[in-house]
Every structure is written in structure tokens, then in C-alpha cells.
């Protein structure tokens, strides 16, 4: 059985995960600097470990209503190729093992509904965990360097 480590987080009522190998670190969230003219789902810029990184608000990205940020709010700092970005989530607590065999393709209807941000669905201790497509979330297909 092959399993891989993932960082689990929560946005709204749903559990999501990204591969731990793509995650640089987790950071607490304390207001990002809004960038006028940036896409609406970009919460702004933050400085983390000496880097200037854009923060993508996953609630906005997933079409959920904005909420007041709490002490549970976290920024999952991910690396995609040469790019580093932060994903603002409602909470992020655990590192989870995901059994590769438990991963399934999301149903077509669901995939379209979620704007193809979800690339697979895994089952972890009988809970559904959605594996997100990080490059797509940070608009990798639009960036041409």
C-alpha cells in the first residue's frame, strides 16, 4: 500500500489536502496587504520568511461567502515550480496519510461545479478529503512567466 503525506486543511464545511512535498510551511494569518487591480480572490501580499508572496483566499476562490478571520485561520505556503504562494484557509491542523489507492476521480458534474479545482477525492478514516489542484488555483495556466 503506497501512502503519501498530505497537509489537510478546511475551507467552509469541507476538508481539503495538498501533498506535503508542495508545502513549504504553515503561517498564521494576520492581514495581507491588498493589491488594487489583482484578481478578486487574491487577498493580497504577505511577507513570510523573507519572501513576498501572494495570498489566495480559498473561500473567494471556491465561491464561498467571506467570513471574519479567526485565530484558526492559516496560510498554507506552497511552492509550484519557481513560484511560491500562500493559500488562505479557515484552519489547517493536521498532516494526514492518504492511501493512493483510495483516491478517485471526482465525478464530472462535481468537477465542473468546482471549477476543476479538485483533482481527486480520497477517503481518510471514512471522511472525504478533496485533493486540490494547486497550479490551477494559483492560475498557473494563465501565467507565461
Amino acid at each position, binding site marked *: 500500500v503506497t501512502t503519501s503525506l498530505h497537509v489537510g486543511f478546511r475551507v467552509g464545511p469541507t476538508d481539503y489536502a495538498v501533498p506535503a512535498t508542495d508545502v513549504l510551511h504553515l503561517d498564521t494569518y494576520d*492581514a495581507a*496587504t*491588498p*493589491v*488594487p*487591480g*489583482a*484578481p478578486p480572490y*487574491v487577498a*493580497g*501580499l*504577505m*511577507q513570510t*520568511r*523573507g*519572501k*513576498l*508572496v*501572494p495570498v*489566495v483566499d480559498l473561500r473567494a476562490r471556491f465561491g464561498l461567502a467571506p467570513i471574519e478571520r479567526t485565530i484558526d485561520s492559516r496560510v498554507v505556503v506552497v511552492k509550484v515550480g519557481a*513560484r*511560491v*504562494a500562500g493559500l488562505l484557509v479557515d484552519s489547517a491542523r493536521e498532516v494526514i496519510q492518504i492511501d493512493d489507492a483510495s483516491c478517485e476521480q471526482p465525478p464530472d458534474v462535481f468537477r465542473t461545479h468546482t471549477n476543476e479545482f479538485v483533482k481527486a477525492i480520497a477517503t481518510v478514516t471514512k471522511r472525504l478529503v478533496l485533493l486540490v489542484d494547486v497550479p490551477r488555483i*494559483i*492560475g498557473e495556466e*494563465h*501565467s507565461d512567466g
Partner: protein
Amino acid sequence: VTERVDLREFLGGFVAEAEELLVTANSTLLEIDGANATGQTRPRALKDLFRALHTMKGLAGMVGVEAIVEIAHALENLVRAAEQRGGKLQKPGIEVALGAIRAIGDRVRAVANREAVPPPPVELLAAIAAIDVGSGQLEAPPAISAKWDDRLAADEKRHVGGALERGAGVYTLTFTPSTDKQERGLTIASARARLGERGDVVKVVPRSVGRAVVFDVLVISDAPQSELAALVETDAIERLQRAEPPAADPDALRDDGSESSVSPFGRALVRVELSRLDELQEQLSQLLISKFRLEREVAQLQANGFDVRRLREIVQAQSRQLRDLRRAILRVRLIKITEVLEPLSLLIRSLARPNQREAQLVLDTGDAELDKAVADRLLPAIVHLVRNAVDHAIETPEQRIAAVKARTGTIRVSAGEIAGNQLALVIADDGRGIDRDAVAKRAGHSVDSDAALLEAIVVPGFSTRDVATRTSGRGVGMDVVKKIIVDQLGGQIELHTARGVGTRFTLRVPVTIAIVDVFSFVCGPQTFVVPVSVIDEIFELEPSQREHLSEIALMQRRGRAMPLVALGSLLAVDAGTSSRNALVVRRGDEPIAFAVDRMLGRQEVVVRPIDDPLARAPGVAGATDLGDGKPTLVLDLVELGARMSLRKPAVRA
């Protein structure tokens, strides 16, 4: 928000060094006096005296005690003149010199007692100036070559003469500019820069030949003649030979004291205010902008079906020239890191004594160079790490001997250039290493890796000490080091520590950074900055103008109609109607005013580019840290103004 180095920290070390130098100066003067009595000369003693004074001057300059600098400088001149004119200092000169040494001594004591340092006595300076050091003439500069003798100043002749004397290669060459060379990026400026990389360009003199201008260049270089010729594409190159046997005393006193970092070509140096270099860079960025405009126009022409090949070649050549120019300017700003770190040796002396530690500093930074602006910001961080090492890392001599270590602890600061624009600076000590358990206890969690340890100690307010030592505990902690290296300079810190063996900090910093003079202001809930260079004017809005603020309105200013843009609504930040000030920028010939809530101030900041496409937006030129650890956006109001004029007028009810 740059941390300044507190000069007081160096004063203890300065006093100790200065006292030793005064003893040397006094004893050499007495030696000369004794030799005079028996009709002998003591050229060696005179040289020692010169060196002592020169070092004194340098040290006093370093800690900013101008009175001592002035006296030492005057006396140094007297001693040099005496040496050049036959190596003799007679009784009156010795009396005056002893008086001057006493005056310096008084001032060193004032420094030691933290008293105000009295200015140099006018009579003393006059007396030094009045000393006649003898009838010997200052030796005439050597002849170089018929072509150059009339074109060189006396000190340049001495400089070149010295090079010929050493057997160094001295070449005279003629550079002939041409459009062809220019297109390949070879102009007199780049020729000079290329030669400058391979040697010392003494002089460049333009000369007209018919209607063209050529340049005669005199260069001292160890590179082969053929290489120099190829560098600047010339056949007209000739190696100069010694014109006549040199009359120069090779052992003559020169202001090239080995303790200082003055270049061997001391006289060829010129001091330039940093602000002028900034100005130069500012001009250069303007040039870059007009180059971009040019490129756009060329693309437009091409789109309209014109043949733009020649134009394109010229634009490409210009791009290369601009790149060369940019590099050349950046190089001018670089200073040797050794120069920056010199005060550290004084710091070690003033720290080690009160702590009953014995510590030596080894500077191993070689020829590594750094932008002056980076160096100035970096020094406080290094001072802190060195101070920490003396205070906490180096054990007492007894402890060290018990641990089978050298009695004297060593703190080594070394540098090595790593990839591209980054420099690694290593501050290593052979002390006791960081106590992981103590840090873990204090931090409230385990710190198993060096990275975790570093994370823990850079937390503001962190200290494992209950009682601040005399030298530490002045309020700067590792958090300040992190702030400087990581937040301000965009660098990185690494830590390696081993119990009983020592600790090593590696600081990776950019060699150059973009420092920009900016105005900061508030607009809505956010603070922004804008480069001072683009602002024509700042004025206060009249109450009536405030009331009628819409996205864009017209206002009268100095008899002209000027658009007034509410920056808050343009940026869609919630600004309300509290705009008090307006900033005027010029787009082409047209002024545009931007209304902002209120001005905060003016400061120099490090601007960092926004690399990620997600956070790149038109009108946002970069980000900076105003000291709160959060990014503040640098706006390009000219660009915003340009977009304004592209927008269709909003339809209003």
C-alpha cells in the same frame, strides 16, 4: 527604520588603540630628538611616526572624533614634508609635534571619560603650519612620454612613473569610435569600463582628427598588449618605456598606510556622495523607460508595414549599452566589505576587556564587495552577532583551558560570493555553542534542528539570560538581525551550532539593492509609498475641492486646468471624503493631481519587485517594508495616470 550602529560601542577599543599609538609617537619623537643631538638622522623613526599618526587619524575618523582627525592630519603633513625634504625634523618641529601629541592625548582622555572633546587649538595648528622643514625641494614629477607629459597632472605623472619603475605595463592607445562599434556596444564609455576591468585607466583625453573625435587612453595593466588591443578593437597601442632613470625614492612616505584599505593607486581615487550616484541611477531608469517607449514605437511601425530592421539593430545596440552602463554604475557603488567591517576590531577590544574574555577577530573577507547601501544596513546585524559571540559564546580563559581550547577565543568573519547577486557572510566563533535545552525551555517547545533553533531565537524579546550583561542587553536581539537580513534586505540566515565547538551564522544578502527615496501617504485603510522623483508638487486641498471629489474632476491650479483623481476610488480602496492632500505627477507634459487622505513622511526604502503574476497589477511598481514587517505597495502614479486617460468616462446618474 535602519538600525544605526552606536559609535559609543567602539570608543573603548578606540581609546586602547589610541593610547598605544600615542606612546609610539612620543617615543619616536624622542628618538629623533636624541639623534639630532648627535648629528644623526632617523628616517625609520620618522616613518614610524608617520604611520602612527596616519592610523590615529583613521581610527579617530572611524569613531567620529574630528578634533583628533584634524590635529593628526596636520602633524602627518608636517612629518611627510620633513621626510620628503631630507628626512629631518629639527628642534622647533619636535617641540610642536610633542605639543600636538599632548593635545591628541587630552582629547583621547576626554573620549575615555565620555566628556565633550574640545576643538583643536588654533595656535597649535598654526604652529604646525609655520614649521619650516628645510630647504629641500619637493622632487619634480618624472617625465612619462612626449605625448602625455603636458596632459598629466603632477600626481598622475608620479603614479605612472611609479608603475614604470615597478616594471608594470603602461600603455598608450587610441580608441576611434564608429557607428559600427557603437552598434556592437563598444563606445568610449564601455571601452573605458573594459580596460578598467583589466587595469587602471589613468587618463582618457579626447582629440579631434579632422571632423572626428578619437580618444587617447593611458592605462596601467598587467594584461598582454594584444588583449588590451582586442578589448577595445584598436591597432594604435604602444607600451611606454621608462623615460629616464627614476629619481623617486621608492621608500618615500606615501599615504598608502598598509593598515587602511586605500587602494595602491590612492591618488586616483575620488570620493563621491552616495546621493549623486543615486541621481545617476535615477537618470538611468528614466533612460530605460524611454528605451521601452522607443521599442513600442518600433513595434508599432513594424505593425504598420514599415521596414524597421536598421532601427531595430540600433535599439538592440542601445539596450546593450544601457545594460553595460547599468552594470558600470552598480560597480561604482560597490565597496570592499573589509572596509565596512574594520570597526569590528575595535568592537572586540572594547567588549572583551570588561567581560574578562579573551577574543580575537579574524577578518577573512578578501576582495568581496557589496553595495554601500547594503553594507550600511548590514553592519548593525554583524555587530550584533559579534557582540553576542563575545558576550555569550566565548568562554572565560579558565573555562577554555579546562576544555582544552586555545585561551583566546576566535571570531571569524568571512565572505564568499555565491551565485549571482548574492553574498554569503559567515560569522563563526569557537565558543561553547548554543544551549539547546535552555532555548527549548525558554521557547516552550523542543528545538531539535538548527533551523528550529534559529526560529526560536529570532522571536522578538527572546533571551535565555535573566540578567543582561554590560555589553549585551541593549535592546537589540536576534530579532533585529532577522529584521535586517530577512525583512529589509530580503536575505536569509542559517545557523549551525555544536555544543562546546562553536556557532556559525551564515548571512546571505543581495550584493545590490534598489534604494528609493519615497513619500509615504495614507489612502483609505492602506499606506502606500511613491518615489519622490516622480512627484512634481504636493499641495493641500481646499475644503471645496474635498467636497466635490469624484473619481475624476477638474481643478484650477496656477491658472491651468488640471485633472484631480481621487486615488482611493481609482484603487477601489474605501477612502471616503477625508482627502486632505494632492500629489502632482507629470505624464508627458500634462500634470495630474491625485487626492490622498494624508501625507505621512519621506524616507529611503528598499524596493523589492513583486515577482508573482497573481500580485502584479498595473500601477504597482513593487513593495517595501516600512518597518512593520508587512509589505507596503510602491505605486507608479504615472502609470495609473496613463490608465486613467485610457478609461472611458464613467456614466453617472
